[in-house]
């Protein structure tokens, strides 16, 4: 994937407590052209969002320790950072569209890598066009 311009490089916050899975996900989103921020739980994620105002996308696992799970985090982010695009992932919880925040996307784990890649590049394209 080519990165047209560093100034409008899309950025993503990857929230995943399982480090190995996070490492792989980070590699995946980097390959899709994103600048990556990482967090291991919701509290770290909120800190990253407050520190980095350029985050365009949140991709979060649901089942996480800490003060809130990924689904609660996604709703919180929708309320406090409305422009952030949201992707919610889980290995065991099936989330319906009603439970997701507006315009949220749910993906299953283990990841369908080609699907995640195309979803990410679609989002990256939209951000760069905006």
């Amino acid at each position, binding site marked *: 994937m080519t990165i047209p311009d560093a100034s409008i490089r899309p950025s993503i916050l990857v929230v995943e407590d399982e480090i*190995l899975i996070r*490492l792989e996900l980070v590699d995946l989103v980097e390959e899709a052209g994103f600048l990556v921020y990482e967090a291991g739980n919701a509290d770290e994620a909120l800190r990253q969002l407050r520190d980095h105002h350029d985050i365009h996308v949140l991709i979060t696992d649901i089942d996480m320790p800490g003060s809130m799970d990924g689904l609660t985090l996604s709703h919180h982010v929708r309320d406090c950072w409305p422009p952030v695009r949201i992707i919610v992932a889980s290995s065991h919880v099936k989330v319906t569209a009603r439970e997701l925040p507006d315009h949220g996307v749910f993906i299953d*784990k283990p990841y369908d890598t080609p699907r995640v890649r195309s979803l990410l590049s679609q989002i990256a394209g939209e951000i760069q066009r905006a």
Partner: protein
Amino acid sequence: MTLQSDAGSRPLGVWSLKLDLLQSPAAVRYGLAFLYVCLASWLRWILVLDNAPFLLYMPGMFVIGFLLGQGPGFAATLLSAIASDYIAFERKGLSFWAPSQIVTSILFILICGGLVLVCDALRTALLARRSDLLSMSTSNASLMESQAALEESEAFLRSTLESSPDCIKVLDLDAKVMFMNGPGRKAMDVVDFGKIEGCPWPDFWHDEYNEAAGVAISQARAGITSRFQGQCLTVAGVAKWWDVVVAPIRGSDGQTQKLLSISRDITEQKHAEAQQRLLNHELAHRMKNTLAMVQAIANQTLRRSGSIAEARNAFEARLIALGKAQDLLIATHWESAELHDILRNALAPHGIDTGRFSIEGPDIRLSSRCSLALSLALHELATNAAKYGALSVQTGRVLMNWTLYDDAGLTRMRFEWKEHGGPAVQAPSSTGFGSVMIERSLVGYFKGTADIQYPPDGARFVLTAPVTRSQTDFSSGEAEVLAAGERVLPTKVDIA
């Protein structure tokens, strides 16, 4: 009069007189009367009683009137008069038609006829009385029998109700509690039944269960038995689960008169079901999580390998390392593992028993995630050592030791892997999966620091991490300790 219970089957006292001769055929009765007259006449013929010509006949008239009835009595009277007159004529020469004889005979007939009538009336009265008494004693006996049966049935019912472990209640048609059996009171923590007697039964249930109880009551009133499961608080406020059957109690006319509610305490069963659901959920979660981890390891291996052949071997070895690490966790229901065990388990394929490894440190338990991560990292360290480091030559050794230390009031662990005796080493590619696992991944899992150096005398890896202590005895060095990592449930283990 006191009657025995078997009065109906045995005639009593005076009533046992055989008054049933009247039921004999007429010929028999008349024949008996005739026989008596003959006997009395024969005696009169022999004895010739002048002063009392009818004396021998009179007593018999009582008996005949009493036992044989009016007809034979009158017949015997007439026959006796004729026989007596005939004997008087034959033996004394007295005329039949002498006025004195006629008067005497008429008087005899009248008196004996009267006697027969009186005796017959007496007999009739006695028979009637006996029949009354017999029927009374029969009805008394059946009354007593049914009373006894009722008592027995009540005792049976009571013992059945009290033997049942279920909470059995009888409600009136307004669903008010009228009765509750002993075990039911115990299960519902009822000390004083008077306090709940008359309370509407559906009020014991709340929310959707109140609705279910109301529906069950309406159905029972309509004659339909229904069943539901619900949660309800005991009088003492303990929440219990119940399997409830509500049924109509019908009267002899078939109409619903009362309602029966039988509740079985299924709290333990519900808890077991919930536990089972939780376990299944946990297991499904772990399986999916393991798959996601395997996916990450596979992708990372492929991404960071030079060739497909290299990737295949490395992936297989990592999968085996992950499997072995999971074996260790299964023993503790996926909660934690002890560090010595983790090292022995992870390094078993690398010759832990060959005397080339030295292990020294206190007992420390690691969370499941830290255990997995460390196992994978140890696999990478040992693989590197076998390829390029101390384990690539016979003289090489690996020393592992760890200690606990105090850092600004918090306990930390310092773990060191030190190789020596091997060839001079060079740092491997920092982008390989091994390096990623050892440096980046461990730091994340342990929330600590990881550092690997490659001085010429052998690789040296140091991991430091905060640990939580479950015991305050710091000096013993044998405290049960849980290393960093979330979702750690303290596991009580015996420390040898």
